[in-house]
């Protein structure tokens, strides 16, 4: 029984179009032209309990809209959504008590008060028993190392500290389903790593189902086995992260370090030279021709070092978004 079921979900926004300039503004006062923006256009997927799924796609692809439909914020234009056997849109208290939505660009902490005040407030809102509250809070505070910032006014915290506190506020009621929308946005690499490690650990310990959107590939690569790639409101890929590489990267990359200067023209006989500046070269070779190419390199060139690598996943996904057909 999947925890999340989405069937043919559509969400269209009506946007009114305005021609530029003053005349355009006046025209739009009298007769407005409306246009449907298909934020999410007929998507379907299922997510099992305890899965940690990455939702990736460029800006405006429909990631956040999907999350909003799943958490009951948006009323879908069409389609069926079921989360924990509830229709999210009904926003039943029993449903809301089991989910949590964290948006990296929005905050729920009270700006003028210490984070601890928001935690206590959430304890009341979610009706968390005192002992469970103490226990969960203690655990989260320790995992995220924020013991010393709980009593400081939120406005005085750094972005990273604030994000950690946001996560705590969202997890105090031990939600079964967690929606994380760009949780690492704007954070430095060290802090990104810490948040990632935390999410991974949290998923492992609590077996909660997590959907994460991000446009940092790093987040997805480290955290998720399964990814759903969405672009222009449609799902373009749904499966194991490793499958993308196997399925869609028909090339591998040979990176070579030469001992002596060579003739770059000769190099192009081996494969497509992506980069050459002595002593380093990067050559793209068809998957099935890799061993032959490597052997030839070793035989005919003064090779000091040779590595065979997969095409970086970022590159594959960039190709996907720039229009290469995956199907």
């Amino acid at each position: 029984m999947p925890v999340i079921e989405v069937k043919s979900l559509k969400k269209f926004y009506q946007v009114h179009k305005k021609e530029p300039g003053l005349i355009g503004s006046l025209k739009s006062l009298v007769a407005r032209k409306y246009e449907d923006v298909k934020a999410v256009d007929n998507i379907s997927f299922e997510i099992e309990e305890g899965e940690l799924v990455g939702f990736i796609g460029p800006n405006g692809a429909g990631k956040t809209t999907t999350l909003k439909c799943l958490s009951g914020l948006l009323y879908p234009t069409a389609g069926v959504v079921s989360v924990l056997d509830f229709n999210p849109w009904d926003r039943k208290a029993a449903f809301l008590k089991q989910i949590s939505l964290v948006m990296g660009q929005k905050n729920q902490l009270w700006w003028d008060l210490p984070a601890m005040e928001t935690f206590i407030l959430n304890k009341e809102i979610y009706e968390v028993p005192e002992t469970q509250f103490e226990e969960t809070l203690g655990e989260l505070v320790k995992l995220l190392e924020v013991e010393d910032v709980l009593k400081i006014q939120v406005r005085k915290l750094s972005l990273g500290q604030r994000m950690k506190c946001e996560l705590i506020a969202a997890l105090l009621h031990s939600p079964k389903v967690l929606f994380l929308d760009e949780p690492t946005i704007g954070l430095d690499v060290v802090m990104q790593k810490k948040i990632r490690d935390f999410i991974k650990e949290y998923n492992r310990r609590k077996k909660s189902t997590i959907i994460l959107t991000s446009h940092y590939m790093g987040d997805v690569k480290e955290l998720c086995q399964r990814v759903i790639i969405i672009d222009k409101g449609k799902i373009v890929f749904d499966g194991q992260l490793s499958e993308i590489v196997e399925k869609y990267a028909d090339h591998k990359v040979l990176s070579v370090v030469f001992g002596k200067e060579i003739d770059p023209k000769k190099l192009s006989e081996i494969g497509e030279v992506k980069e050459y500046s002595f002593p380093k070269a990067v050559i793209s070779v068809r998957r099935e021709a890799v061993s032959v190419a490597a052997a030839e390199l070793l035989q005919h060139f003064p090779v000091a070092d040779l590595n065979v690598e997969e095409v970086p996943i970022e590159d594959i996904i960039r190709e996907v978004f720039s229009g290469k057909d995956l199907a």
Partner: protein
Amino acid sequence: MRKYVAWAKAGIKSTLVYSSDFFLWGLNEFLDTLIFLFIWMIIYGERNSIAGFSLPETVTYLIGVGLISNIISSPIPERIEKDIQEGKLSNFLVKPMSYPRTRFFGSLSGKPLNVLIRIIVYALVAAVFRDKFIINLDATILVLFLISIIFSLIINALLDFCTGFISFWTITTSGFSGLARTLKSIFSGGYAPIVFFPRWFQITAGILPFSYTRYFPMLIYLRKISMMETIRGLGIQILWVAILYLLSRFVWRRGVKRYEGVGI
């Protein structure tokens, strides 16, 4: 219920951060009312009464109406507009709590301190006009007066919700809520007792709910209406509470369906 009390508590703590602001607003209010009353004294000149209101009655009326306005008014429409525009409403919708209830109880949380300051401000104004201010200590009248103010507060809050929820459709409502506020002030008798206005205006004001928020309580205090009329007025207040409650609930449900949360 406990969650809304907790919310209100956090609200108090949060506003106390800016407590100096309260005092400046109080001073502002004091000067405003003072000028307003002096103008009315000039209008009266040598006259004994206007439309059955003596000068002391009008002075008392205006001081009373000023105080009631402050007790019942709330930042609800601006709050709702901001919450919808900035997408903050999402924070409430994903939690097991009711947004309108949270905002209503939240608006009550600022009340005690606010009302205390206003009472001091208007007591000072009354002290300046002490030879014209009518003090009514009849217990029955005072109880009825207080009950009518409680209903005023609820009617006003429900009107505020209806106005604020318009943001679901228009994105900005500040123009609309500004107009609504002015109309509300005129039709509730905020600038002058409603009997001062022409007949058609009085009839219109009688049909609308606004006069039951300020004019009506002051009529009780000044003994301008009989006991029967008072009871009838309280009944109409209850009726308005019911009508506006249903209306605001209807608008809320329709609005939330339209809510898009900001940013795709």
